[in-house]
Each structure stands twice: as C-alpha cells, then as structure tokens.
C-alpha cells in the first residue's frame, strides 16, 4: 500500500508531516532528495486520496481585481553573488550592466555565454533568497559544457558541446527521474512523481554553452507574505530561435485548517497584461495535474481570489504558477482561509 504521509520528528520541536521522505534511493543506487511538501497536522490518508480526487472535478470562479500600479523592482531581494547589480526578474534587464562590468576580452571573458550565465546567476540567486524564506530551493548557472552546472540531483550532461546543442535543438539534463531534453534558448520543468526541477539553456553554436538548473527541495509554504519573483531567462530580442523560459513558482498550498471550503487569495505584479498558467498538481505524484486554468492579470498589482471545495476536506496541493510571456514580476502574497 503506498504511503501518503511521512512522519519526521525534530529534536526539541516535535512531529512534522510530509508527503515524501527526506531521501530516496534511485535505481542506480544514488540517493536523491525528493521535493517535499510539509503537510498540516490535521491531514489524514483520506484527505490525501479522496480529497485530491474530488478536487479534480471542481471548477473555480476566479476574480482578478487590479488594486494598484506594479510594485517597484526595489521590493525584490539582492543577489548575494552580485549585490551591486540592479534588481531584476529578467536576464534582459541586467545583461547590459554585466557586459559593461566585464566586456569580452578574448582571453578570460571569452564569449557572451559568460554574460548570460552571470545574468541568470544573479536572477536565480535572488529568486532563491526570496523563495527560501518559506522553503528550500537551490540553483546553479554557468558553463554547462566545461565547468559543469549541477545542483544536488539535477546536472547537465557534460559530453555535449554548444554546437551540438544548436544542431540537436536541445541539451540533455539528468534528474532523479531520468534524463530530459531542454530546448535551446528555452527551458523546461521536470515534474516527476516525487521531484521537481527546472533547467534553461542558451547556445550560440560555440564550444561552450550557458545552462541553468534549479531544484525545488521543500515547496514554499503559505502564507506567502513577501514577494517572490518569476525568473525570466532568455526572453527578448537578444535571444532568437527559442521561446525563452519563464520559470514557474511552485507553492505548497496546504490549508492551515481543515475545511470542505477554502478561499484562496494572492497578489501578483505585472508590467503588462499577461496570461498566467495556474495549475494544481497532485501532492502524491507531481506529474499529475489535478486541475488547470489560465488567468489573465492586467498591468499593475492584482488581487486574485477564488473558492475551492472538496470532500472530506480541501487537500494540500502543489500550485504551479507560470507566467506565459515574461511580464509578471512577482507573486507578492498567497494565503488560504477556511470558510
């Protein structure tokens, strides 16, 4: 019988419930760190099974109300690696600053992939700080061919060169659930049964190429009360031949109280009208989408609200929010209240 709830006790703290264990063994014998959701103490097996099934048939009446102008980018956190760079959620916003700081000299700063990687590193390390106020995620960016790019359980296949990435149209990334292809000048999220990771790739056809990986360790717990940016990599005119990559925020929507009816509300800031993918993913198998919707948020800061119902109670789910065009800068709050 599959387990749906894993108990973990912490010295001097007490018991915690999670949907996945701290570590698992992969078929090749290596241990990996599953993506975990902390579960509220009222959750039981019925909620994790019947509640999730019931949610799949639910429909939502979503209200989106613009409440103010878009928040200034100053509300984002500095990159700990590049603390002097402007705050940004998109590589395009800071790449000129980086290029000016370290122009190509053909001996040490040898190609534009260095600038792309540094820009991604700045964006993703800032995102990590924001996301990790509520959870645990890690990221890495750099030269995916030679120096290598890896976080704990996701890494690039170091045998590929940038020219091969261009001819194949993609680069290969290894994760706990196996290899997956990441399109050039774009990115991909691997939602596997018990792990979530994301990767982005940019190659201009040289030997080196730029890659980024992110691993979601513990999903960000609600309530979210401080902004978390939506990293936007390789979007804009500088990057052609790809779609760019809007990295999703994946949150742990765990109701603090048990109820058949809950109200979900969150705020988002966007610099123009933008579609946002909004999906509930099964906490017992992230590869399964329980329900999916597309929201359109206007320019400015919007308050989004909807009701959700399920029996025996609204279960915890992983919420995937993905900007569909590179305009949404941050989710600024996210909460849930029993009705």
């Amino acid at each position, binding site marked *: 019988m599959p387990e749906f709830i894993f108990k973990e006790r912490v010295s001097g*703290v007490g018991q915690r419930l999670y949907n996945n264990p701290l570590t698992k063994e992969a078929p090749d014998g290596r241990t990996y760190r599953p993506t975990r959701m902390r579960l509220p103490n009222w959750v039981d097996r019925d909620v994790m099974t019947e509640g999730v099934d019931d949610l799949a048939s639910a429909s939502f009446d979503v209200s989106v109300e613009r409440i103010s102008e878009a928040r200034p980018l100053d509300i984002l956190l500095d990159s700990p690696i590049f603390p002097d760079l402007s705050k940004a959620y998109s590589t395009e916003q800071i790449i000129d600053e980086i290029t000016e700081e370290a122009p190509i000299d*053909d001996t040490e700063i040898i190609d534009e992939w260095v600038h792309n990687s540094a820009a991604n590193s700045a964006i993703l390390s800032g995102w990590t*700080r924001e996301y990790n106020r509520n959870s645990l995620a890690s990221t890495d960016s750099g030269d995916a061919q030679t120096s290598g790019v890896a976080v704990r359980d996701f890494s690039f296949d170091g045998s590929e060169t940038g020219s091969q990435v261009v001819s194949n149209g993609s680069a290969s990334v290894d994760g706990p659930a196996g290899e997956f292809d990441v399109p050039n000048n774009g990115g991909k999220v691997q939602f596997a049964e018990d792990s979530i990771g994301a990767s982005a790739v940019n190659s201009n056809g040289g030997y080196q190429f730029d890659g980024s990986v992110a691993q979601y360790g513990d999903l960000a717990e609600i309530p979210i009360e401080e902004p978390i940016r939506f990293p936007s990599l390789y979007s804009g005119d500088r990057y052609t031949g790809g779609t760019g990559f809007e990295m999703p925020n994946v949150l742990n929507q765990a109701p603090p109280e048990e109820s058949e009816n809950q109200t979900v509300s969150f705020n988002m800031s966007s610099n123009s009208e933008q579609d946002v993918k909004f999906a509930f993913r099964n906490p017992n198998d992230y590869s399964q989408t329980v329900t999916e919707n597309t929201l359109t948020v206007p320019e400015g800061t919007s308050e989004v609200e909807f009701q959700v119902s399920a029996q025996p109670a609204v279960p915890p789910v992983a919420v995937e929010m993905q900007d569909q065009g590179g305009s949404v800068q941050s989710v600024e709050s996210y909460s849930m209240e029993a009705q």
Partner: protein
Amino acid sequence: MKLNIDQKTASVEAARMKVPDWHGKASEMLPASAGTILDKGSELSEDKLRVRGVSTSQDSSTYSQSGLMASGVHDDPVTLDPQELNDWARRDVPVEEEPDCADWMVPAYEQFAHAEARANEYSRAGGSLLTSGGGAYMPSINNGKLAFKSESADTVSEDGATIVTTDGSKTMTVDAPGASTFVTSEGLHWAVANNLQDQQWVGTLFSTQELVNNPSDPIGFPRVDGHTGPLFVGHEPSRPSILNRVSVTARSDTAQSLQFKLRSSLNYNRVIRSFSQDIPQGKSTTDFRLLSIGINPMVMEIQPESGTSVILDDYSVFP
C-alpha cells in the same frame, strides 16, 4: 525518522543529521543516576567527554584508490591525484582549438569533476554533499548553500581574500589563493579560491546538506589545488551508553597525522573534544573509546594534512 534541525526554522546553509529515536529522551532509558545531561548534547564539554586508548594499526602498506567514484558528468579518471586530474583536464579542454575556451577553464573543469565525484561518494554512503566549481567572477559559483561573491581576480589579489556568502545575510572570508573550513552552528563547509588571473579565478565549494552517519562506503576527502579538505560524518551510537568504541578505517597516500574534532549535533560550532593521531601510508584502522556520563549523537570532523590524498573507508561506533 528523527532529525536534529527543523527545516522550517533552519537557515539555508543548514546541514541536517538523522538522529536515533532515543535522542533527547535518553535520560528516561538509563538509571536516574545518569542525570539529564543526555538530553543536552550541547552541554557536553571537554571535561565531560574523555577520549581513551587511541591506537592505529596498519592493515596494508599499499595505498589503493579502489572504490572511488567519477563525476558522472565527464569521463574523468577515478582518482584523488590532482596531477592526474589536471593532465586529463588539459587533454580534454580544447583551449588551443576552440576560441571560446580559456585557460582558467582547465582547473575549473578539473575541480568541478573532482567535487562532483566526492559528492557522489558521499551520496552513495547515505548523505548529501552540495558542491560547485568554476569561474567565480563570471559566471559565478553557487552550490545552493554557499556562493562566492562575484569579484574580479584583481580585487581578490589585492585583498588577499575573497568572500563567501550564504543568503547574503552571512558572509565569511576565504584566503585567496587558499582554502578555508567554515563551521557555523548549523553549517559545515569547505571553500577553495585559486588560479587567480587578471579577471577570472576559480572557486570550489563543498557544503554538507545531510550528514552521513557511521559511513561504511569509501569517501574521498576533497583535494583541490594542493589543499585537502575535511570530511564531516555523523557519529551515531545505536543506543545510549556511557562508552562508545569507535573504529575509523582510512587509506592515505602518505604517513601523516589526522585531526579529529567531535562537534555537538545541536550546535556544530561547539567542539566537544579534539585530538590528532598519526597514521601510516596505506590502509589503517584507528580505534579509540569515548567515555562520558551519556553520549549523544555528534558530528565528527576529520582533517588530513594539506596536500595529501585520503579515503575514509569506514566509521563504526559500538554500541
């Protein structure tokens, strides 16, 4: 499962350790005369923990590297020998042929492969080590727990040091060129800064994410650019006891002295007891006894001499 640190309140750099169910409840399992000190690992101090009978016996005079792993990312040789790794990297990185390959990528390639291989071994033994290596100025180095601040090699050379940071709120200094071990109340790290050019330089980071307790699979000690880093392992008795017999089997490429530091599992900054022991070249086993009113799980830091290659084969605790 029981852990020493709560993820919810932990800092991003936290290295967590699995602890036995009796941790924190040991006083209930022993006679009242044992006292309550068992519940307070952080209160154990040098005067309450004794190390006795430290001895080493040589199992073999031959140094072998069997059981080590490769990076799994490149086709790197399975070795701790930096010269062999450097030769491989020089052959593999086409600095002369490819215009976008620079000299600093050779040590970056070598050190990334070495770090990934050590992380694989630590993972095979049951723990988790986060590593990263490469150009620390641009594009920058980040292992998920620790990152080098992006500074040009000129600046780093002038300062003689560079900065590593956790999430921006905590910073630590690394001699450059050089290596430093950082232990905080929750974090266990080793950082190396080397190959300083005009702008670029190479950085390598090792951070423990989940401690491996009493490992019995081979783990190579990190060795980067003439520096040898520490290994941190969990010291986990199987039950509360006033006596632990410890057996440490290691292989070394030269006769040397190993430094042992027992740290509190509740605050890694607290060194409860430290000692050193000479070991011969080849494979050897070091035995010692720990005596205390009560012995909680602890963290053992083992530090070889700089520039040596050492493999930890086994760390056993009885009971």
